């Protein structure tokens, strides 16, 4: 009888439709949504694209971001560029997505951007102390994000109220 119990429960635990996303697609979705909730000091002109620059991402992570590039942000189409040199980040990037694991490297990139109106998003757990605008936080079952409101305001960026309300932490 005891051996029947697993089988009975297994019958009860029927297949359930998966609504999860893998890490890279979940992260890309967060980046896009957070960008959609951001206002830049100078709106993107008609006919222009919003540039998302990515550096330090694994190939799968970059692929997931590119897969969402057809979706608009603030009415402007999104263009994804891959960077390898921090000096390129200061040119024509509205969103800078950094995948480097350590705060020191993140600071190099953030330093290259200066105070330009760039939404700097990073995936490292050390991102908040590196001075990013938004840090994506990997958790055992999903993902969350933290906001450095002071850094965002310093760059002239305005984050919508839902972003501040839903952030795990706001500094």
């Amino acid at each position: 009888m005891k051996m029947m119990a697993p089988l009975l429960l297994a019958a009860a635990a029927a297949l359930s439709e998966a609504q999860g996303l893998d890490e890279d697609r979940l992260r890309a979705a967060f980046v896009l949504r957070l960008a959609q909730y951001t206002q830049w000091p100078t709106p993107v002109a008609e006919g222009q694209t919003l540039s998302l620059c990515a550096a330090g991402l694994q190939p799968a992570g970059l692929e997931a971001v590119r897969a969402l590039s057809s979706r608009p942000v603030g009415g402007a189409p999104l263009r994804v560029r891959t960077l390898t040199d921090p000096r390129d980040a200061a040119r024509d990037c509205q969103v800078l997505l950094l995948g480097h694991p350590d705060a020191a490297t993140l600071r190099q990139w953030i330093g290259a951007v200066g105070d330009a109106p760039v939404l700097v998003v990073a995936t490292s757990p050390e991102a908040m102390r590196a001075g990013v605008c938004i840090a994506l936080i990997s958790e055992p079952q999903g993902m969350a994000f933290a906001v450095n409101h002071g850094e965002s305001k310093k760059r002239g960026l305005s984050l919508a109220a839902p972003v501040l309300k839903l952030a795990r932490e706001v500094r």
Partner: protein
Amino acid sequence: MTQPTRSPCSALRTLPCTLPSMLARTPTAGQFARILWALELGTGLLLSGAAVAQTAPPDLPSLEDLLRTERRGAAVDVAVSTASRQAQSADLAPAVTRVVSRQDIARLGLRDLGDILRQIPGLEVREDGEFTRVAVRGVAPGDFNGRVLFLLDGLRLNDNVYDAGPINREFFVDVSLIERVEFAPGPGSALYGGNALLGVVNIVTQRADTLAGPQARVVFSPKGQVSTRLSYAQRLDSGAEWLAAFSSDEEPHPALSFGEPERYYAQLKPLEWDRARRWLLGGRDGGLSLRVGGVLRDRGLYSFLPKSGDITGSVDSVRENFVQSGWDGRLADWDVHVGLAWQGSRFRSEQADDTGPAIRTSRFEALGRWWLGEARLGQSWGGPTGDTHTTTLGLDWQRDSLQRFRYVYLGEAPDDQAYSSARLGFYVQDEWRLAERQRLVLGVRRDGARGGESSWNPRAAWVWSPEPGQSLKLMWGTAFRAPNRFESVLNANAGAEPLRPERLRTLELAWQGPLPAAPAGWTWQASVFSTRLVNLIERGANKPYANSALAQSRGGELGVNGQWGAGWQLQLSVMGQRNRADDGGRQAYSPARTLKWSLQMPLAVENLRLSLSGWATSARFGDERLPGYAQTRAHLLWQPSRAWDVFIGADNVGARAYSESSGAGYTLPLRREGTRWQAGFTWRGEGP
């Protein structure tokens, strides 16, 4: 220091010189238990339910929905903060860090911090009717968990009288307010100082994102236990947030502990009750935080009049409060953290005493008040070959303004012994980035206390993470625990030898990575460790404390984790350990093998989830042999909307009888049996 003429603990009786004290009771033998039939249960479910259709959402989910989206596959670069006192990737941290998340707590039906710690490989939670103790890798926790450092959002919780780390009803926050619990095994004194001998437990509380608006939670059991939590949190448009939370936990008739004969139940049960109240108020704005909180716990217990032996009632109570403030920010290229806290604790035990001409009430009380200050600076800098270092400098200060023992017959003059002290710790740690995902961490800390010995504790860790989700770590370190005030006073009053600090040295090798030939989302981890312990402070019944001889602890752990579909999760771990003293004797009641497992699965009904978990332990040996046993827990959670959780669960499915012992020298094994049911709900209102 002040020394009264009459010493309250000179008789060295168990009562009243313990926290909160219990008289000896007669245990009954347990039954021999087989390994889990529920493990077969979980295996059957796993084999039959693994195929899951995978569809991407038709449109990009909202931000709220993304926050509730389950990750498919194993998490990589999970953020942890215990190993280095600041946030970093678990893959690159200089210690193995286990995490139990808020979702795990809700889905597995974990009822208190003890239940949470039971999920973690290498930890055993042992109850003995007096206190709930956690052993690490088979090494006993000391009297009151003083060999494990407990932190609440970085606030040191071990009190300044007994080094006590409370993990059941005496814990500061309701379990439903916890965001995650991190455990870093091994010596932590190079960063944290004393008490971080066997490991560090860091409890991180939830923030206003998950606690927004009004919330209510009620849990009840058929035996009359009721737990409630009311809270309100708000995050303002500026990003500032505040929280108020109150909770209570009442158990009118806890299970009698020592297999008392049934004919005594009617007489004993009314004398046993347990209730706790907790409160927490806090606010944050930017990097600034301020919080106050406390816990009050009262327990009714049966006891015996010392002269006549008649049954009577006694009351033990605990009061603990804290005020904590802190600031995190950046100044002139330095990461800065400063914090200041005040804490107070009072342990009191009252019972009737018939040794005089008339029955009187005797009271024993231990009172502690202390201040804590901490400062930490961090800076990254480049080396000559382009490598980088991240250096952390830190200072911890503690001022024990009061450590007092009071023994009094109510209505008569008290007999007090009061003390004060101070200690200072300074540490430095350098994380040397040898390559993008390779680190060498070196650290050392010096601790000194007024009138006590100083202690230097180094650490070294080499960490290599070839890819996210993989890591190889080689770790070495030392740790110490100075005798606490209670241990020192008891020995001084008994005329026994002064105690020397406990010292420990550990070497550990750990690996984590994808499980070969398995689908994505499956990982495995393995570790081996060797620990040498010197001067463990222990005592037997009615004896003073003494430093024991050299002891060795060796062992290893093997574990598998799988995450797939929309919330399927399996965890399985086996740990083997061998603890031996210099004379060949083993640690009392330390099991040679433990098995832990959990299976979380979404069911066919939308938003319904079933979780099964359990553990098994091999036989334990002390003054008597306690057979091995297995435990299973089942929990059903229904989340029809964001506003509601409804759940029902059972501990000890199968109602097996078992015995456990904390290994504390003056306590006796505890017998438990019967299934413990609970049901309840959580309601979340809309925030402003």
